[in-house]
Protein backbone atom coordinates (compact mmCIF):
# COMPACT_ATOMS: atom_id res chain seq x y z
CA UNK A 1 0.00 0.00 0.00
CA UNK A 2 1.29 3.46 -0.87
CA UNK A 3 1.33 6.49 1.37
CA UNK A 4 -1.98 7.72 2.71
CA UNK A 5 -3.29 10.82 0.96
CA UNK A 6 -4.66 13.64 3.11
CA UNK A 7 -6.63 16.42 1.45
CA UNK A 8 -6.91 19.53 3.63
CA UNK A 9 -9.04 22.51 2.69
CA UNK A 10 -7.54 25.87 3.59
CA UNK A 11 -4.16 24.39 4.45
CA UNK A 12 -1.97 27.34 3.56
CA UNK A 13 -1.97 29.13 6.91
CA UNK A 14 -3.11 28.95 10.52
CA UNK A 15 -4.60 25.70 11.77
CA UNK A 16 -4.82 24.23 8.25
CA UNK A 17 -1.07 24.70 7.77
CA UNK A 18 -0.38 23.21 11.22
CA UNK A 19 -2.46 20.13 10.33
CA UNK A 20 -0.75 19.86 6.95
CA UNK A 21 2.68 20.04 8.61
CA UNK A 22 1.72 17.36 11.14
CA UNK A 23 0.30 15.15 8.38
CA UNK A 24 3.54 15.40 6.41
CA UNK A 25 5.49 14.50 9.54
CA UNK A 26 3.17 11.51 10.14
CA UNK A 27 3.95 10.19 6.65
CA UNK A 28 0.92 11.33 4.69
CA UNK A 29 1.22 12.93 1.32
CA UNK A 30 -0.70 16.20 1.50
CA UNK A 31 -2.90 18.03 -0.97
CA UNK A 32 -4.25 21.39 0.01
CA UNK A 33 -5.76 24.48 -1.52
CA UNK A 34 -6.55 28.05 -0.65
CA UNK A 35 -7.36 31.20 -2.53
CA UNK A 36 -3.79 32.46 -2.39
CA UNK A 37 -0.40 31.12 -1.50
CA UNK A 38 1.31 31.74 1.85
CA UNK A 39 4.76 31.28 3.42
CA UNK A 40 3.97 27.69 4.50
CA UNK A 41 3.06 26.72 0.92
CA UNK A 42 6.14 28.42 -0.52
CA UNK A 43 8.33 26.65 2.04
CA UNK A 44 6.90 23.23 1.16
CA UNK A 45 7.18 23.84 -2.57
CA UNK A 46 10.80 24.90 -2.16
CA UNK A 47 11.52 21.67 -0.27
CA UNK A 48 9.58 19.51 -2.72
CA UNK A 49 9.63 21.24 -6.13
CA UNK A 50 8.41 18.11 -7.94
CA UNK A 51 5.38 17.92 -5.68
CA UNK A 52 6.09 14.33 -4.69
CA UNK A 53 4.57 14.70 -1.22
CA UNK A 54 2.94 18.12 -1.20
CA UNK A 55 0.53 19.59 -3.71
CA UNK A 56 -1.10 23.01 -3.47
CA UNK A 57 -3.34 24.78 -5.96
CA UNK A 58 -5.24 28.06 -5.87
CA UNK A 59 -8.94 27.24 -5.44
CA UNK A 60 -11.82 29.41 -4.36
CA UNK A 61 -14.19 27.39 -2.17
CA UNK A 62 -17.18 29.18 -3.69
CA UNK A 63 -16.50 27.41 -6.97
CA UNK A 64 -17.83 23.83 -6.86
CA UNK A 65 -16.32 23.09 -10.28
CA UNK A 66 -12.89 24.18 -9.07
CA UNK A 67 -13.21 21.96 -5.97
CA UNK A 68 -14.08 19.01 -8.21
CA UNK A 69 -11.16 19.71 -10.54
CA UNK A 70 -8.83 19.90 -7.54
CA UNK A 71 -10.00 16.49 -6.25
CA UNK A 72 -9.64 15.05 -9.76
CA UNK A 73 -6.09 16.39 -9.97
CA UNK A 74 -5.22 14.82 -6.60
CA UNK A 75 -6.73 11.49 -7.66
CA UNK A 76 -4.82 11.64 -10.93
CA UNK A 77 -1.60 12.34 -9.06
CA UNK A 78 -1.90 9.91 -6.14
CA UNK A 79 -4.72 7.53 -7.04
CA UNK A 80 -7.36 8.85 -4.64
CA UNK A 81 -7.94 10.41 -1.26
CA UNK A 82 -7.77 8.60 2.09
CA UNK A 83 -8.47 11.46 4.49
CA UNK A 84 -10.35 14.73 4.04
CA UNK A 85 -9.94 17.55 6.54
CA UNK A 86 -12.63 20.18 6.10
CA UNK A 87 -10.79 23.08 7.63
CA UNK A 88 -11.47 26.06 5.36
CA UNK A 89 -13.52 28.70 7.12
CA UNK A 90 -14.03 32.40 7.34
CA UNK A 91 -14.90 34.40 10.43
CA UNK A 92 -17.29 37.33 9.99
CA UNK A 93 -18.00 38.54 13.50
CA UNK A 94 -20.20 41.24 14.93
CA UNK A 95 -23.71 41.91 16.20
CA UNK A 96 -26.08 39.70 14.22
CA UNK A 97 -28.84 42.31 13.78
CA UNK A 98 -26.28 44.54 12.07
CA UNK A 99 -24.60 41.92 9.94
CA UNK A 100 -24.58 42.44 6.17
CA UNK A 101 -26.40 39.77 4.19
CA UNK A 102 -23.28 39.43 2.07
CA UNK A 103 -21.30 38.43 5.18
CA UNK A 104 -23.95 35.87 6.16
CA UNK A 105 -23.85 34.39 2.66
CA UNK A 106 -20.04 34.34 2.57
CA UNK A 107 -19.86 32.52 5.92
CA UNK A 108 -22.49 29.94 4.90
CA UNK A 109 -20.85 29.40 1.52
CA UNK A 110 -17.33 28.83 2.76
CA UNK A 111 -17.80 27.29 6.19
CA UNK A 112 -20.62 24.96 5.24
CA UNK A 113 -21.36 24.60 1.53
CA UNK A 114 -17.76 24.38 0.34
CA UNK A 115 -16.98 21.69 2.92
CA UNK A 116 -20.08 19.67 2.01
CA UNK A 117 -19.28 19.92 -1.70
CA UNK A 118 -15.68 18.87 -1.12
CA UNK A 119 -16.86 15.86 0.87
CA UNK A 120 -19.45 15.01 -1.76
CA UNK A 121 -16.85 14.85 -4.51
CA UNK A 122 -14.42 12.79 -2.41
CA UNK A 123 -16.76 10.21 -0.88
CA UNK A 124 -17.66 8.05 -3.92
CA UNK A 125 -14.03 7.12 -4.49
CA UNK A 126 -13.49 6.53 -0.75
CA UNK A 127 -16.42 4.10 -0.80
CA UNK A 128 -14.96 2.47 -3.89
CA UNK A 129 -11.51 2.18 -2.25
CA UNK A 130 -13.00 0.51 0.81
CA UNK A 131 -12.52 3.14 3.50
CA UNK A 132 -11.31 6.53 4.60
CA UNK A 133 -11.60 9.24 7.15
CA UNK A 134 -13.30 12.64 7.20
CA UNK A 135 -12.53 15.28 9.79
CA UNK A 136 -14.62 18.42 10.06
CA UNK A 137 -13.06 21.34 11.89
CA UNK A 138 -15.80 22.72 14.10
CA UNK A 139 -15.51 25.13 17.01
CA UNK A 140 -16.43 25.52 20.66
CA UNK A 141 -18.84 28.13 19.30
CA UNK A 142 -20.91 25.24 17.93
CA UNK A 143 -21.35 24.01 21.49
CA UNK A 144 -21.62 27.15 23.64
CA UNK A 145 -23.43 30.38 22.85
CA UNK A 146 -21.29 33.48 22.49
CA UNK A 147 -22.39 36.94 21.40
CA UNK A 148 -21.10 38.21 18.07
CA UNK A 149 -20.53 34.84 16.42
CA UNK A 150 -24.07 33.72 15.57
CA UNK A 151 -23.55 33.00 11.87
CA UNK A 152 -20.16 31.40 12.44
CA UNK A 153 -21.69 29.25 15.22
CA UNK A 154 -24.55 28.18 12.95
CA UNK A 155 -22.12 26.93 10.31
CA UNK A 156 -19.97 25.05 12.81
CA UNK A 157 -23.01 23.45 14.49
CA UNK A 158 -24.13 22.53 10.97
CA UNK A 159 -20.82 20.74 10.42
CA UNK A 160 -21.33 18.80 13.67
CA UNK A 161 -24.77 17.64 12.50
CA UNK A 162 -23.26 16.72 9.14
CA UNK A 163 -20.60 14.72 10.99
CA UNK A 164 -23.10 12.63 12.93
CA UNK A 165 -25.41 11.92 10.00
CA UNK A 166 -22.56 11.09 7.63
CA UNK A 167 -20.90 8.82 10.21
CA UNK A 168 -24.12 6.76 10.31
CA UNK A 169 -24.32 6.67 6.54
CA UNK A 170 -20.69 5.86 5.76
CA UNK A 171 -19.74 3.63 8.72
CA UNK A 172 -20.71 0.49 6.81
CA UNK A 173 -18.21 1.53 4.12
CA UNK A 174 -15.42 1.77 6.70
CA UNK A 175 -15.32 5.56 6.50
CA UNK A 176 -15.04 7.35 9.84
CA UNK A 177 -16.39 10.88 10.20
CA UNK A 178 -15.58 13.09 13.17
CA UNK A 179 -15.53 16.72 14.23
CA UNK A 180 -12.80 18.54 16.06
CA UNK A 181 -13.94 21.58 18.03
CA UNK A 182 -11.01 23.81 18.95
CA UNK A 183 -11.31 26.37 21.68
CA UNK A 184 -9.39 29.61 21.51
CA UNK A 185 -5.83 29.19 20.30
CA UNK A 186 -3.20 31.60 19.08
CA UNK A 187 -4.32 32.42 15.56
CA UNK A 188 -5.30 35.26 13.24
CA UNK A 189 -8.85 35.06 14.58
CA UNK A 190 -7.76 35.50 18.19
CA UNK A 191 -5.37 38.27 17.16
CA UNK A 192 -8.49 40.36 16.51
CA UNK A 193 -9.54 40.25 20.17
CA UNK A 194 -8.74 43.06 22.58
CA UNK A 195 -6.32 42.42 25.45
CA UNK A 196 -9.24 42.55 27.83
CA UNK A 197 -11.19 39.94 25.85
CA UNK A 198 -8.13 37.70 25.74
CA UNK A 199 -7.60 38.02 29.52
CA UNK A 200 -11.26 37.13 30.12
CA UNK A 201 -10.91 34.04 27.92
CA UNK A 202 -7.75 32.92 29.68
CA UNK A 203 -9.43 33.40 33.09
CA UNK A 204 -12.36 31.23 31.95
CA UNK A 205 -10.07 28.44 30.78
CA UNK A 206 -9.17 25.88 33.47
CA UNK A 207 -5.72 25.35 31.95
CA UNK A 208 -5.17 29.11 32.24
CA UNK A 209 -3.92 29.89 28.74
CA UNK A 210 -4.81 29.90 25.07
CA UNK A 211 -4.01 26.81 23.08
CA UNK A 212 -1.62 26.58 20.17
CA UNK A 213 -2.34 25.54 16.59
CA UNK A 214 0.04 22.60 17.05
CA UNK A 215 -1.99 21.31 20.01
CA UNK A 216 -5.13 21.37 17.90
CA UNK A 217 -3.28 19.74 14.99
CA UNK A 218 -2.08 16.93 17.29
CA UNK A 219 -5.71 16.13 18.10
CA UNK A 220 -6.53 16.18 14.39
CA UNK A 221 -3.74 13.69 13.65
CA UNK A 222 -5.06 11.44 16.42
CA UNK A 223 -8.57 11.42 14.92
CA UNK A 224 -7.17 10.62 11.46
CA UNK A 225 -4.95 7.82 12.78
CA UNK A 226 -5.64 4.11 13.35
CA UNK A 227 -5.45 4.91 17.08
CA UNK A 228 -8.92 6.43 16.62
CA UNK A 229 -10.09 3.46 14.55
CA UNK A 230 -13.24 2.88 16.64
CA UNK A 231 -14.23 6.54 16.91
CA UNK A 232 -16.81 7.91 14.52
CA UNK A 233 -19.66 10.42 14.65
CA UNK A 234 -18.05 12.28 17.55
CA UNK A 235 -17.02 15.84 18.29
CA UNK A 236 -13.73 16.09 20.16
CA UNK A 237 -13.49 19.38 22.05
CA UNK A 238 -9.93 20.67 22.49
CA UNK A 239 -10.27 23.85 24.50
CA UNK A 240 -8.22 23.69 27.69
CA UNK A 241 -11.44 22.95 29.58
CA UNK A 242 -13.25 26.16 28.53
CA UNK A 243 -16.56 24.33 27.99
CA UNK A 244 -16.35 21.79 30.78
Amino acid sequence: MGDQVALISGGSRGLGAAIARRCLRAGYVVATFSRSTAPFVDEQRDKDPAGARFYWAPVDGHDAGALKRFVDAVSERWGGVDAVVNNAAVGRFGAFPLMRLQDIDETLQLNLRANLVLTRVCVPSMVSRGGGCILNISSVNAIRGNAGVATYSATKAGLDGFTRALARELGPSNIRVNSLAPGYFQSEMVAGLTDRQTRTLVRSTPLGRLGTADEIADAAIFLLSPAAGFITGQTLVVDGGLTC
Partner: protein
Amino acid sequence: MLNGKPTDGEIEQTIRLAIADVLRRRGHEVPPFDEDALLVETGLTSLDLAALIARLEQRWKIDPFLEAVPITEVRTVADLCRAYRDFINST
Protein backbone atom coordinates in the same frame (compact mmCIF):
# COMPACT_ATOMS: atom_id res chain seq x y z
CA MET B 1 -13.89 14.80 -19.96
CA LEU B 2 -14.47 12.04 -22.45
CA ASN B 3 -12.01 11.11 -25.15
CA GLY B 4 -14.32 9.72 -27.82
CA LYS B 5 -17.90 9.09 -26.83
CA PRO B 6 -18.89 5.51 -26.08
CA THR B 7 -21.85 4.11 -27.96
CA ASP B 8 -25.14 3.40 -26.21
CA GLY B 9 -24.35 -0.31 -26.30
CA GLU B 10 -20.90 0.26 -24.76
CA ILE B 11 -22.44 2.38 -22.01
CA GLU B 12 -24.91 -0.35 -21.10
CA GLN B 13 -22.31 -3.09 -21.27
CA THR B 14 -19.85 -1.14 -19.10
CA ILE B 15 -22.53 -0.43 -16.50
CA ARG B 16 -23.63 -4.07 -16.38
CA LEU B 17 -20.04 -5.25 -15.92
CA ALA B 18 -19.42 -2.60 -13.24
CA ILE B 19 -22.56 -3.67 -11.31
CA ALA B 20 -21.40 -7.27 -11.42
CA ASP B 21 -17.89 -6.29 -10.31
CA VAL B 22 -19.13 -4.24 -7.35
CA LEU B 23 -21.37 -7.12 -6.23
CA ARG B 24 -18.59 -9.69 -6.59
CA ARG B 25 -16.17 -7.54 -4.58
CA ARG B 26 -18.71 -7.55 -1.78
CA GLY B 27 -18.86 -11.35 -1.97
CA HIS B 28 -22.35 -11.39 -3.45
CA GLU B 29 -23.55 -13.62 -6.23
CA VAL B 30 -24.50 -11.74 -9.36
CA PRO B 31 -28.12 -12.50 -10.21
CA PRO B 32 -29.28 -12.45 -13.81
CA PHE B 33 -30.79 -9.04 -14.44
CA ASP B 34 -32.21 -7.22 -17.43
CA GLU B 35 -32.41 -3.48 -17.92
CA ASP B 36 -35.84 -3.24 -16.30
CA ALA B 37 -34.52 -4.76 -13.07
CA LEU B 38 -34.67 -2.52 -10.03
CA LEU B 39 -31.15 -1.75 -8.85
CA VAL B 40 -32.10 -2.95 -5.39
CA GLU B 41 -33.09 -6.33 -6.91
CA THR B 42 -29.52 -6.80 -8.16
CA GLY B 43 -28.35 -6.60 -4.54
CA LEU B 44 -26.83 -3.11 -4.79
CA THR B 45 -27.12 -0.90 -1.70
CA SER B 46 -26.95 2.90 -1.89
CA LEU B 47 -23.28 2.75 -0.87
CA ASP B 48 -22.61 0.17 -3.58
CA LEU B 49 -24.19 2.64 -5.97
CA ALA B 50 -21.72 5.28 -4.75
CA ALA B 51 -18.85 2.85 -5.41
CA LEU B 52 -20.32 2.07 -8.82
CA ILE B 53 -20.50 5.77 -9.70
CA ALA B 54 -16.89 6.24 -8.58
CA ARG B 55 -15.85 3.36 -10.81
CA LEU B 56 -17.73 4.76 -13.80
CA GLU B 57 -16.22 8.17 -13.12
CA GLN B 58 -12.76 6.62 -13.27
CA ARG B 59 -13.68 5.16 -16.65
CA TRP B 60 -15.46 8.13 -18.24
CA LYS B 61 -14.31 11.06 -16.05
CA ILE B 62 -17.89 12.17 -15.45
CA ASP B 63 -20.36 12.07 -12.55
CA PRO B 64 -23.86 12.90 -13.87
CA PHE B 65 -25.23 12.93 -10.32
CA LEU B 66 -23.06 15.81 -9.15
CA GLU B 67 -25.25 18.40 -10.83
CA ALA B 68 -27.42 17.13 -13.65
CA VAL B 69 -29.47 14.16 -12.45
CA PRO B 70 -31.08 13.51 -9.05
CA ILE B 71 -30.02 10.04 -7.93
CA THR B 72 -33.55 9.55 -6.57
CA GLU B 73 -34.77 9.35 -10.18
CA VAL B 74 -32.63 6.27 -10.78
CA ARG B 75 -34.44 3.09 -9.78
CA THR B 76 -33.66 0.60 -12.55
CA VAL B 77 -30.62 -0.47 -14.53
CA ALA B 78 -32.23 1.24 -17.53
CA ASP B 79 -32.57 4.50 -15.55
CA LEU B 80 -28.87 4.35 -14.72
CA CYS B 81 -27.89 3.67 -18.32
CA ARG B 82 -30.15 6.51 -19.49
CA ALA B 83 -28.59 8.96 -17.01
CA TYR B 84 -25.11 8.24 -18.37
CA ARG B 85 -26.25 8.11 -21.99
CA ASP B 86 -28.05 11.47 -21.75
CA PHE B 87 -25.16 13.10 -19.89
CA ILE B 88 -22.55 11.80 -22.31
CA ASN B 89 -24.60 12.83 -25.32
CA SER B 90 -25.10 16.32 -23.88
CA THR B 91 -21.37 16.98 -23.45
